[in-house]
């Protein structure tokens, strides 16, 4: 009996030890992850003179809210934000609807060549974006679309293979019974889509919506290639040009970074589950 309790106790101590080591490692890793964000916040709230103090000061002596005031008056953050919304929202709404419609067709409707067509569409994902950058620019320039939001808005309205793939997986596992009942009632596929498929597919659509909203909000390369006039800049482009303009005024640059990250952080706080599920299912972040 006594040997049994000793081994049990031994296991328990080794368990506690293992758990402590795990915690220590996680805390160390967590600090590495958090410090850049905390340092950004700390710097953004410092009066100008304290930025270069040595050793670095984590808590500013006085909170310099004027940094934030300055970036809203000096840089066009609000204009950039609204420009971003103009670019992101139409693409998001129409693109998602288009993707869901074709995902439904690929998952449930019967038509010749359906699966081959689906594979073809998915197959186009292997074409590297780097190869497309220049010919797409040349084409949009020939349309007269450069220095406008059109190249950033319109292609996305035709849907994205990745999103279609994801939604098709989801719709495919929905039961057929409701659909069959609606078919007998004489509802056409579009009616079935709107009244039955969309409500049942909501979680998947929200997941994709959040991921593509965030990807669109963060997009830097597209606006960089296509936009020239500052009044059309999206928030990310505004931020980049503003940081190269302020060079070493770290308090203002960090305040700008905070402002740009806040919408993402709010979205993440409310929709963490969708972000993580979406990524766990597709492995792609947007």
């Amino acid at each position, binding site marked *: 009996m006594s040997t049994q309790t000793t081994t049990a106790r031994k296991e328990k101590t080794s368990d506690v030890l293992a758990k402590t080591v795990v915690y220590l490692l*996680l805390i160390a890793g967590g600090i590495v992850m958090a410090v850049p964000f905390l340092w950004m916040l700390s710097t953004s709230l410092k009066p100008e003179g304290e930025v270069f103090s040595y*050793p670095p000061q984590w808590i500013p002596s006085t909170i310099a809210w004027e940094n934030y005031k300055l970036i809203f008056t000096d840089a066009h953050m609000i204009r950039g934000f609204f420009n971003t919304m103009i670019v992101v929202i139409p693409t998001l709404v129409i693109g998602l609807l288009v993707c869901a419609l074709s995902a439904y067709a690929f998952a449930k409707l019967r038509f010749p060549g359906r699966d081959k067509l689906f594979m073809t*569409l998915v197959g186009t994902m292997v074409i*590297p974006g780097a190869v497309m950058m220049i010919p797409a620019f040349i084409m949009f320039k020939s349309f007269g679309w450069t220095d406008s939001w059109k190249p950033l808005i319109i292609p996305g309205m035709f849907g994205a293979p990745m999103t279609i793939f994801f939604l098709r997986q989801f719709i495919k596992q929905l039961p057929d019974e409701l659909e069959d009942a609606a078919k007998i009632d004489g509802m056409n596929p579009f009616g079935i889509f709107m009244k039955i498929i969309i409500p049942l597919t909501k979680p998947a659509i929200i997941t994709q919506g959040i991921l593509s909203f965030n990807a669109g909000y963060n997009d*830097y390369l597209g606006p960089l290639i296509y936009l020239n006039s500052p009044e059309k800049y999206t928030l990310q482009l505004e*931020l980049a040009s503003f940081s190269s303009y302020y060079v070493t005024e770290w308090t203002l640059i960090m305040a700008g970074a905070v402002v740009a*990250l806040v919408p993402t952080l709010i979205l993440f706080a409310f929709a963490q589950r969708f972000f993580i599920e979406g990524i766990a299912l597709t492995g*792609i972040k947007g």
Partner: protein
Amino acid sequence: MNARTKTVKRKSLYRSEMWWGFLFIAPPFIGVLVFLLYPLVNSLYMSLTTFSFGQPAEFTGIENYNRALTNDPLVWKTLWNTFYAALGVPIGMIVALIVAMLLDRKLRGRNFFRMLFFLPTICSMVALAMIWQWIFNADFGLLNYYLSVIGLNPPAWLVDEKWAMIAIIIQGIWGGMGVSIILYLAALGNVPSSLYEAATVDGANGWNKFIHITIPGISPVTFFILITSLIGALQDFPRFQLLTGGGPNYSTTTIVYYLYTVAFEYSEMGYASAIAWFIGVIIMLVILINFLLSKRWVHYN
């Protein structure tokens, strides 16, 4: 007769369903045709010309390819830089697996840690680049302060030709682990616990279980992460542009960054198209090699 009307009805239903189907899938196919295939074919032709805006294009055959492969040292330098930067992929995967294994247990604060490691994944690269420029700052940066506190003589990171790429790799690992951790966590949960129990009965220790059960069990996910991350890494460049502007002395210019420069700063669209196809072929080769090698180490079920 009843059966016959039934088949007729079904057939017409099928036929109308067919047209609905084609209608629903039309937009993405139009999109692919207009925004993908047409420019793609056009770019193949463009790569054989001296196309540049405002000037008549001259057909020069494979001259652009010739120039890229034999007469432009920057193509090879930036390609080398790209592969160097891609070292961050395997290193990041190892770190991500370690973190995932730490998180793969009942743990208070598990969600909090998972969120923390995931957070940079969804943040704007522009903002992250600004933060890291400040952290890597040679004179007043946080990193160099703490390194000098522990007695090291830290480099100037982003402005030092030898260290700039290492700094970017570090930033990339910090910012890119989130997706891999989520995928590894899911994969670790899917390795059947009966395998571990059987191994325990056979007296296997933790390391043996890790090598013989965990690693093969998660190998399909490892392969997936490797392929998607490599494709991303071989085309990465906004990070480089934002952190260092490609410098010092092209030490952090990746090949896609160079392609961007040739196209949009020198506006040599024909030559840039040839470089783009060269990159495309290299990416395809890397994927192909990985698929061939994967037969040796990826175990499905």
